[in-house]
């Protein structure tokens, strides 16, 4: 994320081993502490997050930048609205 604005931050949330909806709750709580434009990368092991975190982002207006699934690990990168 080299093109991050000057005041934007990127954070990583480890939500491995948590089952839905806990990764969504942890994401929600983390996002509350961040500012508009900040980037959050959430790393999970429950495939349910591929549905649930994007749904949570849609209803709360946050933007999904990327979703990656590889080797039982699911990563969602979102931008805080």
């Amino acid at each position, binding site marked *: 994320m080299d093109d991050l604005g000057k005041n934007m931050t990127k954070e990583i949330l480890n939500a491995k*081993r948590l*089952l*839905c*909806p*806990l990764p*969504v*709750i942890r994401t*929600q709580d983390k996002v509350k502490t961040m500012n508009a434009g900040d980037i959050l990368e959430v790393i999970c092991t*429950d*495939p*349910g997050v*591929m*549905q*649930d975190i994007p*749904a*949570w982002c*849609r*209803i*709360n207006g946050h933007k999904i930048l990327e979703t990656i699934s590889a080797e039982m690990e699911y990563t969602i990168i979102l931008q805080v609205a």
Partner: protein
Amino acid sequence: MNIGYGLVAQGIITYFYRILSVMSKQKKAVALISGGLDSLLAAKTVMEQGIHVEGINFFTGFCVEGHTHAIRKKDKASPKRNNALWSAEQLGIKLNIIDIIDEYKDVLINPKHGYGANMNPCLDCKVFMVHKAKQWIEENDFDFIITGEVIGQRPMSQRKDTMPVIAKESGADDLLVRPLCAKNLPLTLPEREGWIDREKLHGFSGRTRKPQLALADAFGFDDFAQPAGGCCFLTDKSYSNKLVDLWTARGRKEYDLDDVMLLKVGRHIRPKKNFKLIVAREEGEARFLQGYKKEFINMNCASHKGPLAMIDGEPSEEDLLLAAQLTARYGQGRDAEFVDVTIREKDGVERLVTVKPIKADQIPLQWMI
């Protein structure tokens, strides 16, 4: 004198300005969204009256969705959505999902109003959730609370005599609106103040689902969740038995999230008070249990294909051999004379034992939890 008149006039203007701003401020309500049809309809009914609605969903740890779908392989074929998120998306509202796992323990362990048919403390649970919603509206400057309750729909928490208990004990009192059966209940503050029109609320009652289905149709909802077995493991007989067994074996009522999860997984067999086996029933469960290998002694068949079994408790050497015999029983070597079983300690140290698989008729029924 002029200054005095000026101040009075200014005071009057400020007073009317305040009244006007209170009158014109859009009212806001929080709806308890379970993911089921009733809460969806209740929220929509109030939104139709121009109220700003946001959703709140409480995660007790015992919710059926999510976890089990993630664990069991057979459920993976059709990925399940989170119905509360789905409801919020249908309504176009924000949803706040709140982790109440720790606070909920007291509700489940010491329910003032007791349990329902199983270990479900529905009345205390509702009181607690509405109480949390009341705190939430105070913190977030919202005006009232909506639930999808219907008089007579559920035997414990949704009866004519228990509905006022929830309103009173939660502290929500007349800030609690049940739009689906409001006409059968006393006036609430939002109705009295004219924030919402009572005539546009409903008077549903009883166990019939017909009025809800008709309203869903009128609102154009056609893909809603109607979970047949409820949305909470505590209403499940087998789950409740396992929870009671856990408390009995430990000699005290306590649990943590791992206990809650493990009670959802596998076949639970308790040959003695001091230990039980959790035997994976399929690949998804075995994969899930792998994550607990450092917390439990575990074993699996080495000479034949067979499931992973975790040993919960304080087993003796003799107990471990019995556990190995049971583990062998659930593998492909069940009819073999001898089966090799690998026993793995929490620190990963392994050893091999050879046992005779236990026969089905040697397993007393009361061992199966």
